[in-house]
């Protein structure tokens, strides 16, 4: 019998050695930098400010060093080849031979664009069909949508998709009446109802796409490695239209292989879960990963918002491994189209990650899981610390300029290495060292692609080099803006101001929203101006050091608008800038999805007067949509007299005064009540015109006049 590789066979000592290497490197690099910094600070007497600056610097530099070391270890294993990777367990086998188990592919959604959701499902379904392994998979759209229009669109889109793919009985749709605990509650609700029927669950985000091959391989890896509880893929960012999203996808595609290989090098079986594009072993997940509430109330306590890291820690605590399939092709997601949308998403993530502070000392967690939690916190906490560090340094510099300390070896002229004075300004040396750590992984990634003759997939060597240069300039300008955003979020959260769960804006827009940009960035611009002006007046030499930071802040609003423009993004693509292999040699699912979406969006829009309540209109007026909607609702026992009276009044108002007379909540209440929906459909068609509002009369006359099919996302 053929013996297969399984990750359980890996030597535990080897894993320990890898981690020791990683942390030793981080320690060494941090020590060197701290030594430089201490030397720089203490040319004169030791001061309290100097100590604070040094402590902050140590924390922040260690954070940078971790990224650098991860990338360097990634480079090491990419060149040498890594045998300690989970994909080895299915290497060389054809898709038809791979072992599979019953798998649910779940996609939790909340007020998303239904075209994007269902067209992605369509390409995933078709791609799985091509592998010949579709029979092992069921699909679930788990909706928490509370926008009446989008809810009805989802229902119609699901129904049409099932009809077109003959997917009834394989593609399912579930809408929760009450959305408790957001995404993790939604998935938990699915597991309580249907979890026992499946061995695995593939969790997708509303903007995820995966190839059938990738899904089959991931499930097969789980089948081969029975001790693995979660297998995370490394999704690539795709479908960027604006300059901002193209920058993100370019940097993700070019730089991430190095970091991912490095992460796998030292994470091994204690890797992390990123919430989507992952396979989960259902039984242990259900047993160990139901999330309790944290002490206190939101934003710091209460429900756990960023559930993924905690679930990874809990399943690891129960003895199951978590792996990263870093070298698996065919896993994709989309990024936010603008800087402001990215900040909105970061605000949610920031709150979720800050909550993890509670869990740093939780009993039984694996040290590496604690480290993941700490890194998640530091991802946001680093920003206020950087800001504090820079502000204190500025004040320290101002103070020095006003009360200069005479020194034989002035910091601006020499660097001390042991007892040797090197004629290089020490600050410059430290700056250079930091820059090397920050930018060398990027340059190495570039060199790797050039060396492997992969530059053509990025538009050619010249365009690739130019794109990397421009990306580095853009990331340098964006870094201080993100620093201020994150610092603000952390302070707000500490002051007890929570965030609401808003739908992520995923589509690019042609319009510039200057008002939003100015409101969002005005504080940053003013801060940059004041900081820069005072530095220029008090210590002009220090101003030039601050300039890279100040530029980003002062230009934040126009930069934000410039990067948000879809036409600039398209122009960059035409010029061959920020191209990625996922655009030049895409997996078949990507162009297919793009083509389907183009067809969807070309479809005629409902007339303006009806657009706002088109979903509700269809659910009441269209005989088929009404039938599908009612059949999907759970029948309810007749309510009390007051409840019935409430619904009667709502129905009357809807027909007599139109949907504009009802609040969103009232519309949702009607849509959730099957009796009301039946009644409304019948009465709408039976009532004489003079008893109906003008809105309904227009809707009845206009409906299906110009198109033979109703205007929905899926009719094409």
């Amino acid at each position, binding site marked *: 019998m053929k013996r297969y590789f399984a990750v359980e066979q890996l030597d535990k000592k080897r894993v320990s050695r890898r981690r020791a290497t990683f942390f030793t490197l981080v320690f060494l690099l941090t020590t060197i930098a701290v030594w430089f910094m201490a030397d720089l600070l203490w040319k004169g007497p030791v001061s309290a400010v100097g100590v604070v600056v040094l402590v902050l610097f140590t924390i922040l530099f260690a954070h940078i060093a971790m990224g650098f070391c991860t990338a360097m270890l990634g480079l090491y294993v990419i060149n040498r080849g890594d045998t300690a990777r989970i994909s080895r367990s299915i290497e060389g086998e054809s898709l038809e031979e791979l072992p599979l188990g019953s798998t649910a592919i779940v996609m939790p959604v909340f007020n998303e664009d239904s075209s994007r959701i269902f067209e992605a499902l369509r390409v995933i379904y078709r791609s799985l069909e091509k592998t010949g392994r579709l029979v092992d998979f069921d699909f679930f759209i788990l909706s928490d949508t509370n926008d009446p229009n989008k809810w009805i669109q989802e229902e119609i889109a699901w129904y049409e998709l099932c009809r077109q793919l003959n997917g009834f*009985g394989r593609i399912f749709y579930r809408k929760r009446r009450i959305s408790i605990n957001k995404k993790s509650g939604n998935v938990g609700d699915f*597991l309580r109802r249907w979890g026992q029927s499946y061995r695995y669950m593939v969790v997708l985000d509303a903007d995820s796409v995966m190839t059938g091959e990738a899904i089959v391989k991931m499930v097969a890896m789980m089948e081969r490695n029975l001790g693995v509880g979660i297998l995370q893929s490394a999704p690539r960012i795709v479908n960027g239209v604006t300059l901002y999203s193209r920058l993100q996808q370019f940097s993700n595609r070019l730089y991430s292989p190095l970091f991912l290989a490095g992460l796998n090098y030292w994470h091994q079986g204690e890797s992390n879960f990123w919430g989507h594009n992952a396979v989960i072993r259902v039984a242990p997940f259900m047993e160990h990963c139901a999330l309790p509430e944290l*002490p206190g109330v939101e934003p710091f306590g209460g429900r756990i918002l960023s559930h993924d890291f905690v679930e990874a820690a809990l399943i690891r605590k129960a003895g199951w491994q978590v792996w990263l399939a870093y070298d698996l092709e065919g896993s994709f997601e989309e990024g936010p189209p603008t800087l402001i949308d990215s900040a909105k998403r970061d605000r949610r993530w920031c709150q979720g990650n800050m909550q993890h502070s509670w869990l740093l000392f939780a009993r039984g967690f694996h040290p590496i899981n604690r480290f993941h939690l700490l890194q998640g916190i530091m991802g946001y906490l680093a920003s206020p610390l950087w800001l504090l560090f820079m502000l*204190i340094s500025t*004040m320290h510099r101002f103070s020095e300029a006003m009360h200069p300390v005479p020194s034989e070896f002035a910091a601006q002229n020499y660097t001390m290495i042991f007892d040797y004075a090197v004629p290089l300004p020490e600050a410059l040396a430290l700056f250079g060292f930091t820059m090397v750590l920050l930018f060398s992984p990027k340059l190495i990634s570039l060199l790797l692609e050039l060396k492997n003759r992969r530059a053509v997939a990025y538009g050619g060597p010249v365009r690739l080099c130019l794109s990397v240069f421009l990306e580095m300039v853009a990331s340098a300008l964006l870094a201080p803006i993100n620093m201020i955003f994150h610092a603000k979020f952390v302070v707000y959260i500490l002051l007890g101001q929570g965030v609401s769960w808003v739908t992520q804006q995923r589509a690019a827009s042609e319009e510039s929203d200057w008002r939003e940009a100015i409101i969002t960035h005005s504080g940053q611009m003013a801060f940059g101006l004041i900081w820069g002006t005072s530095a220029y007046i008090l210590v002009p030499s220090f101003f030039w050091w601050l300039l890279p930071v100040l530029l980003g802040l002062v230009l934040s609003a126009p930069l934000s608008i410039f990067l948000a423009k879809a036409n600039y993004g398209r122009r960059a693509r035409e010029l061959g800038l920020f191209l990625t292999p996922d655009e030049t040699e895409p997996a078949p699912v990507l162009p297919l999805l793009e083509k389907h979406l183009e067809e969807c969006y070309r479809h005629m829009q409902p007339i303006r007067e009806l657009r706002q309540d088109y979903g509700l209109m269809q659910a009441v007026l269209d005989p*088929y949509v009404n039938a599908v909607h009612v059949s999907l609702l759970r029948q309810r026992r007749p309510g009390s007299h007051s409840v019935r009276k409430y619904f009667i009044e709502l129905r009357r108002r809807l027909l007599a005064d139109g949907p504009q007379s009802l609040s969103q909540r009232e519309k949702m209440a009607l849509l959730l009540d099957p009796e009301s929906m039946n009644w409304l459909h019948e009465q709408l068609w039976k009532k*004489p015109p003079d008893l109906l509002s003008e809105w309904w009369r227009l809707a009845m006359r206009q*409906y*299906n006049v110009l198109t033979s099919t109703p205007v929905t996302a899926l009719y094409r």
Partner: protein
Amino acid sequence: MELPLESLTAFRPRTGTPDQWNAAFVRVEDYLRAHRVHNRLQQSQILHRVLSRAAAQHEKEPHLDPTTLAAEEIDRMMDEWFGELLGDKNLPHERIAIEGRIALQMCDGVTRWPYAFLDMENIPAEFAHDMKRRSVQAGPDMTVTSMVPREIELGTLTEVAGQTFEQIEKWPILRVSLLWAVFLAVLAAVFYTTR
């Protein structure tokens, strides 16, 4: 067979005003279009049948609006037709209407058999067969089980901090005051050490 346009021309209701019957005509026409019945010839045939039956009913109940009667008539005709097709004539109106419409939509009946709509006498065998697949399944059979959150032991330090925060949260003014005090203290410390 009588020509449909002639049949409509021959439509002479004895009760109700022309405006009322015109409104009823428009309503039935809209309703047919909502069912994706776009064929004008077929529309006029059905319209004649519906309006004739509604007119007869209006003579008995002149206080009712012709639009209401016409809508009730077409509903009744559809219930009978769906009952015949689904082989279940005893279902209540709400169920037969829902199941019939879903079955009709699922088999794309209006497009594939355009002349079969509301025709009780000529029902194509394939259409009748396809109409029997009448339900949509939004979810598979449930296998309900529990998924109970387990307490996470946060560690002594965190537990104490948690309890303290919970106490503080009971007094929101104190909480905000404390946070601001910490914030101001940090500012003061920065100012003092760097002035």
